[in-house]
């Protein structure tokens, strides 16, 4: 518990503190940003504190250690509802949140992706909207985030050395005229910022034992604590946000590890619980005044939940690859990430190497499968290369997080139901991406290619989106909710659209910007 041993603590009756709910990419970054400016900040994290020394080189054991396994339910036509009905998302419940698990890909959104509605036009059955901020507004914060996170191929930081899985992707890309490199990764290629260089361990998803991959666990959180302005409370699961007669939030109720409930007063509350828990908390905080939940006058809380178009292609060869050795996301092809409607869909996608260990390959290759086709693929594990396909999915009002009153969590609160139907645009994009992924591997002599369906979502976005007009979304361009001036959304829930790129860099950039803006508001007494 060294991280929290000597930290400053604040009274639960101190109503001058900013309460940040969640310690991941959004919450951890915002909290440090506020603490650096001298504002008293209390971070409530539902999960426990693990150190890098705790991380396990064992996929199932690590999953049990880190994953958010509280009950959730699913509905809709997406395949996950069948394959993993109780596990719609693979995210982390621990100090540091999903920055422990993420692969490190740190790509900026493209300028046109902030203007999805203007660029793509109206798409039937989609709820597209332009972001209330544009690329130029966010660019300085992207630059700041890249420097803080040590993103390769920025700030004169060299690329990571490519592993075997990268070599296969790169050779295939060459044949097809794609460009491919080891990407913009928030993984140290050289020692930097007091953290080691990547040792090519290959357990990126299980937490980086060497601390080479950026995580708030060993960057933002200790920095914030060191200011003396921040208190981190692990195993503090927020159940409800309270408000006063003026409709301003005043406190949060949370349960500690023994289930005892506490009330922490607050001047400002910032919610960063990931795109499933954030809307769930707003909905579970419904009151006489806010009968549909907090900040929900638009009815948009929980709606426009996005999870990216995803899929994977694995290919087998007549010689060994050992794809699991080294960085999980070791190579990226961005040539299909632009907007080119001649392909039959709007938006674009990235191709990024991915590998799974043998246990998770069995679990995810083709969930539910059995028999020779499955085992023939597993037999070739050693000679397998793999990539993940990740692209923009369409926001839809009907893809949403709701409360499932029939299922309660350990504290008696309704759990989140995740409803998702693939949009025809998502389906068309996935088909295109599968075909291109297979072409890359076939170009270098694949014996067989295998299309793997989406994994439980690590990219959970939207659900409390930012919008120019109050009736179109939940928060403004700073993440401040339209309805409640001292309530902020501080995670990927804010995203108006998903863009093609992995979300963490944009979550961090938005959090850095929010810290600036909120700091100004706090100074001026605006909140």
């Amino acid at each position: 518990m060294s991280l929290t041993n000597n930290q400053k603590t604040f009274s639960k009756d101190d109503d001058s503190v900013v309460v940040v709910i969640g310690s991941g990419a959004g919450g951890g970054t915002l909290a440090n940003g506020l603490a650096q400016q001298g504002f008293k900040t209390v971070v409530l994290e539902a999960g426990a504190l693990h150190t890098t020394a705790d991380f396990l080189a064992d996929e199932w054991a690590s999953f049990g250690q880190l994953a958010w396994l509280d009950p959730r339910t699913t509905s809709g036509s997406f395949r996950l509802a069948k394959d993993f009905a109780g596990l719609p998302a693979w995210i982390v419940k621990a100090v540091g949140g999903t920055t422990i698990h993420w692969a490190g890909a740190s790509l900026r959104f493209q300028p046109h992706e902030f203007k999805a509605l203007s660029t793509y036009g109206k798409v039937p059955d989609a709820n597209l909207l332009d972001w209330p901020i544009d690329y130029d507004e966010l660019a300085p914060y992207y630059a700041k985030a890249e420097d803080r996170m040590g993103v390769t191929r920025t700030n004169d930081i060299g690329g990571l050395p490519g592993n075997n899985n990268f070599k296969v992707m790169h050779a295939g890309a060459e044949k097809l005229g794609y460009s491919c490199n080891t990407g913009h990764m928030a993984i140290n290629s050289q020692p930097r910022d007091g953290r080691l260089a990547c040792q090519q361990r290959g357990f990126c998803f299980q937490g980086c034992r060497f601390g080479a991959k950026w995580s708030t666990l060993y960057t933002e959180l200790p920095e914030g604590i060191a200011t003396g302005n921040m208190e981190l409370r692990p195993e503090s699961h927020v159940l409800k946000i309270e408000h006063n007669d003026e409709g301003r939030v005043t406190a949060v109720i949370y349960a500690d590890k023994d289930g005892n409930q506490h009330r922490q007063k607050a001047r400002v509350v910032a919610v960063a619980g990931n795109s499933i828990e954030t809307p769930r908390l707003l909905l579970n905080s419904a009151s006489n005044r806010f009968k549909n939940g907090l900040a929900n006058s638009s009815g948009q809380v929980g709606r426009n939940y996005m999870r990216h178009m995803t899929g994977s292609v694995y290919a087998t060869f007549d010689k060994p690859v050992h794809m699991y050795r080294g960085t999980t996301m070791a190579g990226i092809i961005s040539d299909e990430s632009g907007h080119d409607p001649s392909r039959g869909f709007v938006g674009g996608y990235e191709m990024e190497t991915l590998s799974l260990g043998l246990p998770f390959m069995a679990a995810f290759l083709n969930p539910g499968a059995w028999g020779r086709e499955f085992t023939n693929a597993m037999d070739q594990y050693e000679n397998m290369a793999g990539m993940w396909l990740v692209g923009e999915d369409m926001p839809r009002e009907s893809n949403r997080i709701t409360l499932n009153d029939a299922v309660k969590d350990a504290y008696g609160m309704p759990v989140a139901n995740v409803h998702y139907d693939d949009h025809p645009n998502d389906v068309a994009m996935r088909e295109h991406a599968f075909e291109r992924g297979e072409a890359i591997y076939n170009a270098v002599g694949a014996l067989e290619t295998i299309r793997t369906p989406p994994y439980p979502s690590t990219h959970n976005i939207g659900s409390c989106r930012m919008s120019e007009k109050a009736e179109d979304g939940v928060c403004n361009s700073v993440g401040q909710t339209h309805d409640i001036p001292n309530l902020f959304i501080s995670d990927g829930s804010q995203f108006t659209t998903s863009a093609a790129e992995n979300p963490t860099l944009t979550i961090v950039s938005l959090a850095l910007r929010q810290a600036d803006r909120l700091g100004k508001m706090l100074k001026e007494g605006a909140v």
Partner: protein
Amino acid sequence: MSLSRRSFLRNSRNALIGTLAFSNGAIALLAPSKVWSMPLDSLSKAEGETILELTRHIFPHDSLEDAVYAFVVRDLDKAASADPGVASLLRDGVKDLNQRAGGDWAGLNNTKQFSHVQAIAGSGFFEKIRSTAVVSLYNNELAFAHFGYEGPAGDGGYLYSGFNDLEWLPEPPLADSGVLPA
């Protein structure tokens, strides 16, 4: 390599016991002895053997030792000990399979066995075995050795032990890759 290698030794009432079929495989190198045994608490030896055989049909890897499939039986046996519902699901499932086979499913030839497996696919019994096996069969060090996965051996990192040792494709240019850390 024939199926007759599954000659369980018959001297125990509550354990699966077998001998390794491949004397020079990756697993044989790890195993302290050619003979292996897996004690059972809840399932009978006959039930355990039937479930092992059934698991071989669900996830057929012809050259994978019974000793690895035995991990699936072990985990099902543990689940049966912890939950009487699982115990009866497995016991009734084995009984049902034998009834379908006219008394002794394990005594049928491989093709006939498989036709009964197809018939029960999707049943609660089948799914319990499949969903347990998809974890247990591939989540142990013997399986890692067999399939060529290094598992926890990678904990120290492959930076100096083969992360980029693939030589059958052209080396990517340095500009697309990167140098090793200093």
